């Protein structure tokens, strides 16, 4: 596998969980031995999405919240590409929640790496959909009223065929999960617990280390997985909540994508038959 270096060095704060995710992703890509033209990285806008400038591969850095539809479009245009989404809780679960659910329901063959720092990092510290109740953000100084959104639960209820959680403080395990997710065929979510050392003073490395535990049991159905994926006061399980290879990925349901990618259809089209029918 070629060099992933772009010559630009990340600007994340020292200690930011994004460093760990970056390291794990690079390690996973190396392990999978993919050439840099065989996959596309689709970045959302955020501190997470600023990884854009630090991986030398095909990259698409679109709009805040819209990485998933862009990724779906890329996948459908050329399904021989592995498509990986890098984004934050604000973008993927706030602005872009509809797309997250829709892509999961469709079992789009993309791997979504969710940098869950429970805050809007790049815009300097507002609360996010995963912020805990009571969190005081710059736009919610009276404290968040909402109950936090459960990314894994939502993915599971939407029918995501691969759902896992990792902790950015544990690079080896995160790498393993990335490798696993990247070899899944279908919609894969990896929620990475990502401490934001600058704007999230509650959910720190220590806080997570006290709670994070590997998922002890193997799970039965989706509803059980949803229950286990929920955070409790004591436990936040990491590991794989679902991996179901029995369902077709979205693109696999179309006969024309069986032997060719969509962009390989470049032949001239003969409209005569249709036109004649309109005479």
């Amino acid at each position, binding site marked *: 596998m070629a060099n992933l270096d772009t010559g630009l060095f990340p600007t994340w704060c020292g200690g930011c969980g994004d460093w760990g995710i970056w390291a794990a992703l690079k390690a996973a890509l190396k392990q999978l031995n993919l050439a840099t*033209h065989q996959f596309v990285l689709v970045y959302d806008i955020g501190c997470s999405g600023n990884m854009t400038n630090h991986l030398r591969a095909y990259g698409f850095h679109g709009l805040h919240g819209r990485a998933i539809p862009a990724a779906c479009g890329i996948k459908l245009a050329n399904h021989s*590409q592995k498509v990986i989404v890098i984004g934050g809780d604000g973008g993927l679960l706030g602005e872009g929640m509809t797309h997250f659910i829709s892509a999961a329901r469709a079992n789009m063959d993309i791997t979504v790496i969710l940098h869950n720092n429970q805050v809007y990092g790049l815009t300097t510290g507002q609360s996010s959909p995963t912020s805990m109740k009571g969190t005081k953000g710059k736009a919610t100084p009276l404290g968040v009223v909402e109950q936090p959104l459960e990314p894994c639960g939502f993915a599971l209820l939407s029918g995501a065929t691969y759902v896992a959680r990792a902790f950015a403080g544990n690079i080896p395990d995160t790498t393993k999960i990335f490798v696993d997710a990247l070899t899944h065929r279908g919609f894969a979510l990896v929620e990475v617990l990502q401490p934001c050392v600058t704007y999230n003073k509650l959910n720190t490395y220590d806080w997570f280390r006290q709670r994070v535990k590997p998922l002890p049991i193997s799970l039965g159905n989706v509803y059980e997985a949803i229950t286990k994926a929920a955070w409790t006061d004591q436990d936040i399980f990491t590991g794989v909540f679902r991996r179901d290879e029995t369902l077709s990925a979205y693109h696999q349901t179309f006969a024309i994508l069986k032997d060719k990618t969509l962009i390989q259809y470049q032949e001239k089209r003969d409209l005569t038959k249709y036109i004649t029918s309109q005479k």
Partner: protein
Amino acid sequence: MPEVFGIKIAGPAGAGSMSAGETLVRAFTRAGYYCQGYPEYPSLIKGGHTSYLVTISEKPFPNNAPKVDLLLALTQGALDNEHQSIAETTHIIADQTLKADHEHKNLHQPTLLTVAKNAGNPLTLNTAMLGFVAPQLKLDPNLVWELIRQELGDKSQTLLDQNKAAFDQAGQLSIQYHLNLDLPKAINQTHHLAINGSQAIGLGAIAAGINFYAGYPMTPSSPLLHFMAAHQLEFDYLVRQAEDEISAINMINGAAFAGAKAMTGTSGGGFALMEEGISLSGMLETPIVIYLAQRPAPATGLPTWTSQSDLLFAINAGHGEFPKIVLAPADPDECYRLTHRAFYLAQTFHCPVVILSDKYLAENYYSSADFPALDPVPLSAVSPPPKPEMFARYAFTPNGLHSRTIPGIPGGEYIANSDEHEAHGLVDESAENRTLANQRRRDKTNEIKNYIPLPAITGNSDQAVISWGSPKYIARQVAEEMKMAHLHFNHLWPLPEKLDTLLSGYTKLISIENNETHQLARLLRQETGITIHQQLGEDTGRPLDPGKLIDQIKHY
């Protein structure tokens, strides 16, 4: 012989006046007329009054007949609702049980409902009406039945039999009637299509080699979505009904980045939601095509009526300044060619191309000359020699154009970056880089202008009527009657060089648009400094009335 003849079929929504009207357009086209079919229906599913006006003529692209020569009323409500469109000379056909509000010398009341009931299904009334009227219109009943048969598609045999029975019995009934309708001359061509703007745009996209269409339903863009969806297997592309318009535009941005010839379509409200994604296309330089079918606004407005009120909205769509192309076809032939051209321009300039239509163009049926076969637009992508740096996708070039790669090409790696970026797509916020990037975008817009034709001119006069989009033939009729020239724009943005010279050659310019604020007139003044002397038009949801426009010009 009159120049045009107008036939209106009216009934409640769901009673089949639409399909009967379309059948008439097809039948007359085959019979060698030029036709236009204009549906009117409210924004609801059942019950409201709907009508379909078929205008036939010996000349191409007739406008709506100024009066209804033949009214086919399916129900009492239809008859009542249409009382305004009944002139003294109008022939009316209505079932025997219906009551006209006053005496009409040309009221004909065959027992059509009985025919339908006898056929076993009162819903065959529209078919009975066609069976009755075909001989009076000198249409070959076999041809008309064949078209009805086609329209019924894969309906059950029972339903087919019922319709056939109604059609034939009504034809029998017709023998006793002699309406002696005064029809225009048929020119007896036999190769014309009967087609609407949506179909023609779809065919243009298919001919251009579309790979991916993502859309979200919205009147009046839905007919294109449905057309594209219906033909995906036949022509090897994929249609995705997205979860919303934002997804659709971002999906096609992604697909276009990956090499797909990609398109989306919507109406005003959905287009508003897509604007951020259009701006994205401007930054990433993805080749995308966006179809905007206008309807009266603001907000939900009049969803099933026509309008041209989104011109400046489309031209100024998306935050920031970036190259963008806006086209507006006026008839099926232009729909077909300009859509193909939209893909060509997108692949050439790597920018968003908007195709503006409206409900009138999207849903009207027209007799149209055959469409030429067109080659697909070649996919713009190169295979560069691998280098240590990424591919210089956004390198500075003299005319703002540059080659691109797509994922899968080794050595072509680059970042499509929505942040301002340097040649390889890496973020670069320096003033120097920004200045260069601005220049690249400006150069590109200037280069595009070389591809933009001046408006089409017909007629010779020092006074001219100007128009854009679907009212083309209305403006043409006004110009002809006023003995003025007619300048029609189908490339709306950017405007071509030398337009000021062209316009300043006229002593009087009159704009005709289906909107209230005279958007083309204002655009022309913005870009050329030339004032349009008389600015006409309104936005009532209805097509403009040539007679009223001529009056306004005469009384200026």
